[in-house]
């Protein structure tokens, strides 16, 4: 898909979302859902970049999200760092962790990368709840319940102030996804695709698998860390319950609904998944079952996710191009 079409879909989506407060600005519940959609759109897009474009089966995205949220909260609560600076530091710290996780993954094949990265996810909860986490200021099993909101020039962006916070989230999501779009359409993106399609052939042409794979780990971890940090300051509290498999599965559904390797489909996927999930709420215990069935039907009929609607026949045969 061309840069222009991708940018048009992104612009159209964000444009529509930007108009939402005109109609639902006074409905807290919907504004909160929209902000969460923007947050998940970034996380899912990062996941799509590393998995769909770079072909690295990383299952550590939720862990990086939590690391970003926790590190920013710890920086601001324990060290008194202003929230905006804490978010940036959290992004850098998460990128560092991403690189450390990525290093051993470079020597592993697909399913083993998934195991290592999911291992990071699984060990994070006991680590944060245990003595090491407590010493670092994670709040142990209780979590951190007093995260200050983002303040810029004395103006506060938090759950008490939803419309301005929504626009802050929108700007952040637009910036993060714009970075992803530029990367995909730059020589980096071409290198990712070359390595994904045939690593040996790409390397014979001088594409460094080491450099580009590490780069994608660092970039996606950084962006996920920043948006995770925003999540913490927005909600005002975090706990290890964000590491339960519930969120992991929901994010995976967002990527599948949007289309794997079909950026910017994940942005649409995030909105569709969250809204569908909320609309199915009256089904109670049957919600997960119905949601699962809908996803199966969608995958069978639209293997490229909702982006299948925009693809030309030739593009549908060669996704992520």
């Amino acid at each position, binding site marked *: 898909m061309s840069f222009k079409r991708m940018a048009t879909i992104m612009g159209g989506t964000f444009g529509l979302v930007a108009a939402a407060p005109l109609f639902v600005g006074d409905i807290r519940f919907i504004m909160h859902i929209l902000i969460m959609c923007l947050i998940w759109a970034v996380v899912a897009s990062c996941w799509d970049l590393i998995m769909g474009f770079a072909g690295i089966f990383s299952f550590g995205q939720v862990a990086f999200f939590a690391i970003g949220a926790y590190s920013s909260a710890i920086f601001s609560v324990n060290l008194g760092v202003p929230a905006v600076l804490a978010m940036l530091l959290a992004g850098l710290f998460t990128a560092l962790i991403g690189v450390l996780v990525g290093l051993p993954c470079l020597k592993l094949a697909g399913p083993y990368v998934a195991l290592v990265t999911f291992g990071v996810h699984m060990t994070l909860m006991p680590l944060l709840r245990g003595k090491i986490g407590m010493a670092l200021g994670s709040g142990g099993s209780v979590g951190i319940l007093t995260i200050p909101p983002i303040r810029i020039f004395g103006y506060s962006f938090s759950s008490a102030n939803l419309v301005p916070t929504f626009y802050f989230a929108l700007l952040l999501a637009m910036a993060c996804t714009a970075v992803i779009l530029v990367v995909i359409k730059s020589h980096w993106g071409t290198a990712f695709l070359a390595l994904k399609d045939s690593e040996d052939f790409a390397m014979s042409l001088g594409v460094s698998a080491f450099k580009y794979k590490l780069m994608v780990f660092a970039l996606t971890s950084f962006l996920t860390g920043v948006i995770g940090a925003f999540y913490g300051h927005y909600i005002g509290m975090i706990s290890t*319950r964000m590491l339960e498999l519930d969120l992991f599965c929901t994010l995976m559904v967002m990527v599948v609904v949007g289309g794997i390797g079909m950026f910017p489909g994940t942005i649409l996927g995030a909105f569709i998944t969250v809204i569908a999930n909320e609309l199915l709420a*009256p089904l109670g215990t049957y919600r997960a079952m119905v949601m699962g069935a809908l996803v199966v039907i969608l995958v069978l009929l639209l293997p490229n996710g909702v982006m299948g609607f925009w693809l030309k026949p030739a593009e549908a045969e060669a996704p992520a191009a």
Partner: protein
Amino acid sequence: MMRKFALLAVTILFLAAFGGTASAADTIPVGVPLAMTGAYTGSGQDYFKGIKMAIDEINEAGGLLGKQLEIIRYDSKEFAPEVVMQGADYLCGQKKVASVHAGWAGWGQDVRAYGKYDAPFFADDGSQAAVDVFREDPKKYYNIYQLTDVGVEQAKSMFRLLMTLPYKYPNNKVVIINTDDSWGVEVGDTLEKSFKEKGWKVAKRETVPYGTNEWGAILTQIRRIKPAIIHVEIPSAQEVITFFRQFIKRPTKSILSYGWGITPREVLQNLGKDADGIVGEMPSGLPGPKAPNPAAQAWIDKYVKLYKHQIPAGSWITYTAVKAWANAVKNVGDAYNFKAVNKYLKDNGYKGLLGQIKWDKDNVLRAQPGAPIVHYQVQGGELIAIYTDPPIKPYGNYKFIVPRWIK
């Protein structure tokens, strides 16, 4: 392409069919945020049974202030921070409920989320963390009510029970196993401190994550230690069932104390009479199977007839909370005069089936005669109340029986 658009249209119509529910104007909406999916579904169902029973009773009796109560449910899933907050915004902000009745609700996160509103919010966090959040700003969180005492106090009561049992311990060694969440750690820490103060040796303290079902390594150590007491504090059926199944293959002569973990229905449904001898507790419980007075007995009989099993943790106290709120509304005369309803609840409490209940300065329903901590032993495959606290005293004619693996 046509097929794709047809699919999209059908999906949207399907979702819209569920999204269009609205509450009727002549009802009073009551919010019920509970886990309906995920790891905590079982406890969510137990809480809901009590809430529904109370609301059905009120509706059958003509409603509240002439209006029927309408339950608006919200799936709290696994209590991720944004889900807890979303629940508060949905129920209080969007649906304008007159009160919120929950069970486990977020262990402090819920206080922040529902404290933004004024509708009375009843939760069973049983957590000091939730109380600490309340204490930060009691005026702001004046609408938050905890239905059970905190983990620290429940653990102290468990310790009192273990020290009161008519049984001579062969040694002073105890093994404590607890989950790694705030509840498990709170109870485990308090028990460890209490045992040490009493001169006991905490021979092993193990903090385990949920989902631990392979107990071989821990049981090997326990068999070497031969403790007089093993306390397992895991509020999830699967783990305590697997622990017992593996323990009983080569049991040590230890009193097996399960704390809160004995009360989910799945535990006894699975273990049945095999579990005879295990002790455990239920905060804000209604002792049974024979209740202390005819009204309470009638309640138990009705509950058993409705749900075909004895009372699990949470059912009775959530029932009582709905009745307490309804009583406050009746006295105030307006379900949406939140300030007055909250003031009434705070000042007067409620006269329940076991007597008067009253929330303390932290809006916590501390263990009290009207809502005691009930200590059980499994006998004949059922929970039999053997002690109540406070004060710790034997209950009715029921007696503690030395477990068969010790005899």
